[in-house]
């Protein structure tokens, strides 16, 4: 029987083609998975930014309501001025968060945080004096600082991370100032709530009242999805 001739060139060609196709399939799958992961991470960044904007709107709303309360409006001038400046700063934060959300392909968040807002508004409606308002504002600032600090470690885009990292310390400073004022009011030193203050007369407790934490806590931070705009 005559040996049958096998065309090995064709076999080689097909093997090579198969190898190329297999390589292409791996590369395409990798790219698709990578893109999907990047999309997912980008979506999380947008949600974080929208939730942050919602918290900022809530802060603005609470401070504005507080500013209209008679014991704030007719109370210490420095507190009223602090509220006005802080409202401006929160508005700037909201604007920056929304700009970043839009840049990342998301929508602007124009509403205050509903879930956390319910509790905050209930507390504000029962406020009877400046200390009540200051306590509530300090806890609102604390929540913002906790949330933004936590997001720093969770977001993907370095510019978004930087934004959260540049806002969280400012919310912490608002809180420190409010806690210091709360301490002065609670100890009957209302006359020292002014800028410039009379430093030699400041009570010893003021030196530590504004900074209760050694590290910024992040426990109970608001979930990223809380203020997301669908």
């Amino acid at each position, binding site marked *: 029987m005559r040996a049958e001739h096998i065309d090995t060139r064709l076999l080689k060609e097909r093997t090579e083609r198969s190898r190329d196709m297999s390589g292409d399939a791996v590369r395409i799958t990798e790219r698709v998975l990578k893109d999907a992961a990047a999309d997912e991470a980008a979506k999380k960044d947008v949600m974080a930014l929208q939730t942050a904007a919602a918290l900022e709107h809530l802060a603005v709303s609470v401070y504005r309501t507080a500013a209209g309360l008679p014991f704030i409006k007719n109370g210490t001038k420095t507190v009223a001025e602090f509220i006005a*400046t*802080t409202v*401006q*700063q929160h508005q*700037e*934060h909201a604007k*920056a968060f929304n700009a970043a959300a839009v840049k990342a392909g998301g929508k602007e968040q124009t509403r205050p945080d509903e879930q956390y807002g319910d509790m905050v508004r209930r507390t504000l409606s029962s406020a009877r004096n400046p200390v009540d308002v200051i306590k509530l504002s300090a806890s609102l600032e604390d929540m913002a*600082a906790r949330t933004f*600090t936590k997001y*720093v*470690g969770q977001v993907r885009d*370095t510019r978004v*991370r*930087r934004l959260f*990292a*540049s*806002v*969280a*310390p*400012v*919310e*912490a*400073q*608002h*809180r*420190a*100032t409010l806690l*210091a004022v709360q301490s002065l009011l609670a100890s009957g030193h209302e006359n020292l709530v002014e*800028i*410039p*203050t009379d*430093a*030699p*007369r*400041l*009570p*010893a*407790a*003021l*030196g*530590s009242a*504004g*900074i*209760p*934490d*050694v*590290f*910024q*806590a*992040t*426990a109970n931070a608001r979930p990223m999805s809380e203020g997301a705009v669908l």
Partner: protein
Amino acid sequence: MRRARGGWELPIGESELSGLTKDMEEAHRETLPAMRTSAAELGERIRELGQASPPGSPGGLAQDGPVDAGRRRFLLTAGGLGAAFLLTACSSTGTDEKGLPPHDGPSEALPPRPAVDTVMYTAELRFVALSAALENQAVGAYGSILAAAGAEKFGAVPPAVSTFVTMAMAHHIDHAKAWNEALTAAGKPVVTDVPLSNQRAVTTALDRAATVDDAAKLALQLEEQAAQTYLSAVYHGKSRGGIETAATIAPVEAMHASVLRFVLGQYPVPDAFLPEDMAATPGLLTV
């Protein structure tokens, strides 16, 4: 601050001090475990990076594009900060015709950076070592302020300032510990002193501080430098542990700055966003 036999006592009652101590201990309990986890993660990540890239090669912080710009900025800001310290000190003690103390020429104030092969901390570890050094610098500065107050150099020290200085020093000790835990986890020696090229300027300024306000202004600059350095690190850092550690310390340094501003008669929250113009970079390290 009042003098007591053999030392200093806080101008507050024992029960108030106990309350403050209890609060501080609770804060420690709440935050330190998280810090240890972050430090351990950071150490592991840095060890991985070290294995992936040979010593002296770019990695971690050094991989980012903006680092060159950051280094250029450092030449401006580190020098600027040193000059600012000196100007603050000179404002109360007089200056020479150049506005600087004669012994603070660039060759002394900024010792040459060690050659790459002698650098002890590489890649992201340089930032960790820088952070530990900055914290040690703050601890030393507050310690000097307390000692100077004890020697009645500043006259009467407001009670709130005494409390603040004691508390802030304790905070910085804990922050340094957190950074050093990361170094230990990465198998590197801890930073127990202040290997920073601006240290001479800082100690000179502290020596020249004649009033509580002078000392508070110096402390404010150190707090601002630390907070802004951590903001910069969050942006340039690679390891999640390092980013989280910096992110949880920066707000506390910023709060320190707010209290100091209030005591100094300034508005406590001057900026809507934390700036970075005073941030130090790892180039400040001399080890």
